[in-house]
Structure formats: structure tokens, C-alpha cells
């Protein structure tokens, strides 16, 4: 289940910005959402499970534009991004 805040509802101090890229955008049907930080110690892997976009394996996680492990605890205000396998160059 996903909690989504409309822009006028945003409470920056208590939400995460979640970003998707490339094929994940197509799969989810959205690029960016704000979701409430409902519990202390929430991890990227737990947010991913809420999104119901399939298995996390082969998806990279970035928090505040840094690549991190998916079990890193999140804080309100974080920018959390899920990144499918890179295909640049």
C-alpha cells in the first residue's frame, strides 16, 4: 500500500521524496512521489516493498544522491531513488 501526498499536503519534515528512473517509471506509471515517513528506522528496501514493483535485486538505491545499501535507515526529507541497471556509455 502506498501513501501519497499531493503537493499542497507536503510536510517536508515528515516525508521522503521517492524518484524512479527509466524502466521503473514505465512500470510504476510515475516519476516522483512524496511518501510519509511512518516509522523510525524505515529502510529503502521497506519503501520498495510498499511500491510493489517486483523484486529489488538488480535495482540500485541512492539516498540524497549517493549510492547506498538498501537497508540504510531513512530520515524525513531524504531523496530516495530507485535505479534500474545502468546502460550508459
Amino acid at each position, binding site marked *: 500500500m502506498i501513501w501519497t501526498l499531493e503537493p499542497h499536503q507536503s510536510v517536508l519534515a515528515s516525508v521522503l521524496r521517492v*524518484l524512479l*528512473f*527509466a*524502466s521503473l517509471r*514505465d512500470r510504476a506509471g510515475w516519476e516522483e512521489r512524496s511518501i510519509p515517513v511512518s516509522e523510525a528506522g524505515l529502510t529503502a528496501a521497506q519503501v520498495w516493498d510498499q511500491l510493489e514493483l517486483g523484486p529489488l535485486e538488480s535495482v*540500485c538505491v*541512492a539516498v540524497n*544522491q*549517493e*549510492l547506498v545499501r538498501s537497508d540504510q535507515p531513512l530520515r524525513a526529507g531524504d531523496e530516495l*531513488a530507485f*535505479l*534500474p*541497471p*545502468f*546502460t*550508459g*556509455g
Partner: protein
Amino acid sequence: MVEIGQDDSIRVQIRPDPFSAFEALECWAGAAAASAVFLGRVRPQTLDGEPLQALELQHYPGLCERQLLQLAREQLQHHGAIRALVVHRVGTLLPGELIVLVAVEADRRGCAQRCCSDLLEALKHQAPFWKREWFSGQGTWLSGNTPL
């Protein structure tokens, strides 16, 4: 165009428009004994062999530039090379257009060549870029890199 670089030794550019590799190199080139350069262009066919209309390149602004800078720094240090230039296109590219330019200067040819090659591989596997092939009005995200 976004351009970053913490010092004279590394220059990273993410460009939304077509660019000339030779102008980019000419602006950047020093007088090191050895320079190795790689240029990657859009193939005329999709991975399935169909005629390609366009190649779309998406990236994660911010993380992408910082990651390229970090990868370049690591590879220069690892190989004992002197300077690196990375230019990468984003947006919609046509067949034959340049996607990427990687250039490395060093004092020895082997070092320049290995660093250029390793930096290219690092960039392909560790920098947040994604390619989508357009054929017959349909876009398909690539799931992995072409083989070496």
C-alpha cells in the same frame, strides 16, 4: 551543458546537444606523452537488428556528475594517470551521433590505454545513465550493456 571538475585533472560534461569530439579534445588536450581516447556512437540498428529511429538517454542529474567525477578520480589514481575528460550525451540521439567520449592523459602509453578502457567500463556499469531504443514509434529500455 553541465560541467564539473574539482581541479584541472578531471573534467566531466553532461551534454543535452550534439557535440564535436574533436573540439572537445582540442580544448582539453595537454602535452602529456601519451593520450588514449575512446568515442562511442549510436548504432544504426536496435539490439534486435531493426532500423533505429533514435536512442534516448536518460540520467540522474546530480548523482550522475558526482559519480563520473568519483570514477575518474579512482581510475586516475589506480593507474597513475594524469588527467581525464568524460563527455556524455543525454536526450534524444540519432544514429551516428556521439554518445560518449573518454580521454586519459598519462606519461606512459600502457597506463593511458588501460585507464581509458577501465574508466569506460566503470562509467558503463556504475554511472546512472539509461538507454531507450526507439523503433517504429515504440521505445524499449535496454536491460544491460552491449558486450565488450
